[in-house]
């Protein structure tokens, strides 16, 4: 009986300890959220946005991100969406590559030559993403959902989220499918449910503290598929855009608060 009581007391104190840790992590997250180093990169992204580049030596300032040529305000919050000139749904990064090719006259190979940067030198797309996303602060996430191709993209993303693939038979939902799951201290949000998707999607792209790097949603998709041991997805492909579309549509209505911080 005594041993049983002791066991119960131990279980109770462990639960309390777990809560304390979770609370402390919450406090730490709030602290870093108040001053995200991501802001430091917005300035560099702005310079890059205005810098003439490519064979045509023009800047990206006439790039139409969906709100009209050169309009940045609220552009990120309304992506992914259908673009008539490309006849497909694009997310921010796919659209930026499109503008680099069509407006700056660069080859696609050149535009995507260096997708993911390092702590010392973030990539062009990372810096641009941070800057452009920053112009949507406070705007509610409302990706395009009216055009038939937008609806198809959302449905494809939803299907892919649950579709098991690769040598390990993994789907996004294998990790992000049940509540209360975590890897070490990292909680795994159930991203097909709006209450979990909202805070997550409202803070991408972000600064990753453990690697001191700027990370984007295309990177996240790429790395999740790497962790699932599938072949590498094409950058800005229909697949990756569809998943981002599904996630942002699930987070629909959340005021954009990024660029944020990640572990």
């Amino acid at each position, binding site marked *: 009986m005594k041993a049983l009581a002791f066991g119960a007391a131990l279980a109770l104190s462990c639960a309390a300890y777990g809560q304390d840790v979770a609370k402390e992590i919450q406090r730490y997250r709030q*602290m870093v959220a108040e*001053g*995200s*180093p991501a*802001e*430091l990169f917005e300035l560099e992204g702005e310079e890059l946005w205005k810098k003439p580049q490519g064979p045509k030596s023009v800047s990206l300032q006439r790039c139409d991100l969906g709100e009209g040529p050169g309009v940045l305000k609220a552009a990120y919050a309304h992506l992914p969406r259908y673009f008539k000139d490309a006849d497909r749904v694009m997310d921010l990064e796919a659209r930026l590559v499109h503008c680099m090719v069509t407006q700056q006259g660069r080859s696609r190979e050149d535009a995507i030559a260096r997708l993911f940067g390092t*702590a*010392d030198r973030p990539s062009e797309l990372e810096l641009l993403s941070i800057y452009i996303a920053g112009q949507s602060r406070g705007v509610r996430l409302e990706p395009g959902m009216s055009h038939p191709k937008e609806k198809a993209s959302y449905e494809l993303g939803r299907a892919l989220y649950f579709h098991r693939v690769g040598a390990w038979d993994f789907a996004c939902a294998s990790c992000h499918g049940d509540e209360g799951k975590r890897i070490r201290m990292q909680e795994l949000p159930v991203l097909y449910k709006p209450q979990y998707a909202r805070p997550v999607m409202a803070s991408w792209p972000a600064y990753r503290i453990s690697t*001191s790097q700027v990370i984007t949603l295309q990177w996240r998709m790429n790395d999740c598929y790497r962790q699932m041991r599938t072949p590498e997805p094409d950058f800005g492909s229909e697949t990756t855009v569809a998943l981002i579309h599904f996630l942002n549509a699930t987070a629909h209505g959340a005021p954009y608060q990024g660029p944020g911080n990640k572990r």
Partner: protein
Amino acid sequence: MAAGPMKMRASLGTGFTDVRVLMTHPMETGLRKDADGKVVPQHFIQNLTVKLNGKTVLDAQISQAVSRNPVFSFRLKGGAKGDKIEVSWLDNHGESAAIETVVA
């Protein structure tokens, strides 16, 4: 890379001023090796100085235990709207950077 951008915000509370400053710095510990296996030399901010209207109010010595691209957040006693706050750092290579802002 060292003298990259800095950002600062200073907001007035009741009887105090909240200051938050972001700085770009590699903060190398001297323990890391690069891709070729060579040790990356130490490179970190040593001194942090905060001035309120030209008068030093905080003089901090920090070490390589602080993360890359650090964020510092602190409270200064007093302060008023329009006060000038200046933050500067000096690293072990003798490089430095500074930023100033006005309390809002």
